[in-house]
């Protein structure tokens, strides 16, 4: 079943939409959640949450790219769960590391909320990402949006873990420079 057909099921309030979503994107959503939470069962629950969230939001939403839409819902759900359970001993996934890594980009003293509208920053980040080579862009997105481990990214992109680490480091520096140049002091 194609994305369009699945979205059509959602729009018609046909419950098969959930099953088809799970069938096509189940592992994908679970993986994103697992990357953040580091726990298989929480990840499954997060993915389930995402299906229901999709059920609740489509319509009125009508995502252009269903996979990306699900990714964002899952990510959001997993982050919420992570916050709720971050004192929990068992499994933290990669989120703490990723947040730590991002300190390279937002290392200034100014409050991000005061320096610019979020959407302007996002637009700038999108422009920056456009300028990157595809491989670098994938590595950046996989790490900081999909929260994948360095090892998984290395496997997925066919480069060494070292290469991934170095690439991420360089892209972060470039992003910081780019944002600073455009007047965003994060």
């Amino acid at each position, binding site marked *: 079943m194609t994305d369009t057909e699945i979205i059509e099921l959602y729009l018609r309030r046909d419950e098969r939409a959930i099953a088809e979503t799970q069938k096509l*994107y189940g592992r994908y959503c679970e*993986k994103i959640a697992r990357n953040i939470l580091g726990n298989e069962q929480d990840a499954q629950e997060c993915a389930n949450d995402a299906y229901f969230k999709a059920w609740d939001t489509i319509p009125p939403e009508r995502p252009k790219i269903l*996979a*990306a839409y699900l990714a964002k819902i899952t990510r959001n759900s997993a982050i919420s769960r992570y916050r709720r359970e971050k004192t929990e001993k068992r499994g933290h996934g990669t989120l703490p590391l990723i947040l*730590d890594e991002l*300190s390279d980009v937002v290392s200034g003293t100014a409050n991000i909320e005061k320096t610019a509208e979020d959407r302007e920053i996002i637009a700038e980040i999108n422009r920056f990402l456009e300028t990157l080579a595809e491989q670098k862009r994938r590595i950046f997105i996989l790490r900081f949006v999909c929260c994948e481990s360095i090892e998984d990214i290395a496997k997925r992109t066919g480069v060494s873990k070292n290469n991934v680490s170095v690439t991420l480091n360089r892209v972060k520096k470039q992003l910081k420079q780019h944002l600073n140049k455009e007047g965003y002091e994060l």
Partner: protein
Amino acid sequence: MKNEKFFELLESVDDKFIEEAMIDDFDGTRPVEVRAEKTRITPLKIIAPIAACLALVAAAGFAVSNFDKLTKSATPNNSTSNGETSSSAYMENSAPVVVKELADTAFVNECKELVILQLKETSSSYKTLDASDISWDVGLLDMDFDGEDEYLIYPTKGREGVFVFKKTQNEPEYIGLFGEGVEIDFNKIYKAVDGGNYYYYHYLIQEQSIVFGNGYSCEGIKLVSFEQDRICETQGIYGDVCSKYYCGKHFDNALTCYDDNNNKISPDDFKALWKQYPYLPEPTITHLGISYFDINNAMELLAKKYGISDKSKLFQNEFWRDTDINNDNITEGIIMFKDVPELPDIYVVGDNGTKYLGSLGITGKPFNQIWDGSDRYLPPAWIRQCQDENESFFYCTTTETTIVDGEEIETAWYIYKVIVNDDNTVSGEKYLNFGRDLSNGGKVFLKLGDRDISASEFIEERNKFCKDSDYKFAELDCEMMMEAGLNFGTFYKDIKEIDQELRELGSNLRRVRQRATLCSVNLDDYQVSLCAENLFYSNIDSKPIYCAEKLFIALSDKDGKVINIVDVKPQGSFFTENFNGFTPIIKENTDDMLAAGKDNTTFDLKFFTLNNAEKMSFSIENDKLVSNS
């Protein structure tokens, strides 16, 4: 936090970038590359990894069994062929060479960059280090067991740790930082390589060792050391997993030592072996099995107090001991016994074992290892110091397990509160206890102290405990309470409580029980129970929906012994039939799903889906369940 805020912002990047990045995953028919299994490990599941780990750590015991070979291997020209089986093989000429020039500057610079990146990932004190704290001009260049990969090992300047890199096509790959707190003399390192399934490197550094490799379930690094009476993993994930080579005084207070085949050897033989280990310190009282307080004193004290003439019985049944130093610098020890009916199980002693401080007054409960909910076992009694300023109490937790049909299952969970009095005496009290009483047909019990409490009281107390106990391990206890409660199933008798709890958690669909008894009916000579495995809950259009991965009916005899089980698969479903393979049950209260027939040998099972109800009929013939549907 700013980082979090920025992280959230990244969620809004253009969808096309996400699609591009995860293009491999978009075809649902293609498997996603999944990293190492992170499934919540149950105590039973962990047995295999432990076995693997034991193999690894036991192999570390080669340090004792292969003393000569090790000694020889320390001398570059003395390359004795091992002639061993693959599991204990080690390399010839295995003494690594300290080299000054390990790699070109670019390579080292890349290593430095990796170290700066990777140090952030460590939670150890090394987090504060940077590349300048590493001795880049001194290190080891070594090969792995098949000679395919080179490893570069750089010490920290304080020589209390090493950074290991793998060299691939002249590119360094960061492997890890090992040996924190270990004083490392690079001239005194031995190496051995296990060529079996769990191959690894073993660097023996004075009395401690660093092991790293890629064995199944033991991937990564284990720091092992000689600790107390055994060779133990001290930073391993399995807690007190020890090699087979050890001496101890756990039995009859005589020093007993074992070789790699678990045969007893004399202490003199053990010491002789020990001496062949050139860099080990002389075996001390600690190494040879004496704990920090004098166990003799303690046993003497307890035997006298409880009128036990045969002191050996105490030694034979001692199960666990641990020590702590209190605020007044007095060493306190905790001793646990099992299977000594006349004794309470847990004692606290002080003053090197000469002073009886109190007991927890718990009798007749065997103590077993507990699982801390993550990926390791804890010692059977894990003393958790409260962060109360006065340190006036701590908790001690354990579980009780029972072998059922050959499987070890947790049947009860105990939390004790130990109060440290002003005069440094201690007294203990039962706090929360819950589980199944196997002597009473597996009936679930919930207790606060000795008092039976309701499920709602239990949950209230649990929440209080979890909220008030703001210390490191409280979450584990809380989680275990949840887990154990779920496993035991029926203490959440009122499903509305689950509903309320889940709503508070903001969850739509989540596993609420691993195993649960949904309802039971009593027939003349039998009890019939409807049970679920992996029960999930959801709430759609204000209707609670329960989905179970598996439903089955258990038939028990008068004594509560399960004599027959049949799986049941009702027809109809809210979701498509293959929705995760779950069977839906939609009902606010499952209590009346089973109904006994008039003749008390038949019963009906009712299922409820969103749109209809379904009935299945059963009878019992010759102690077997027979479906009449």
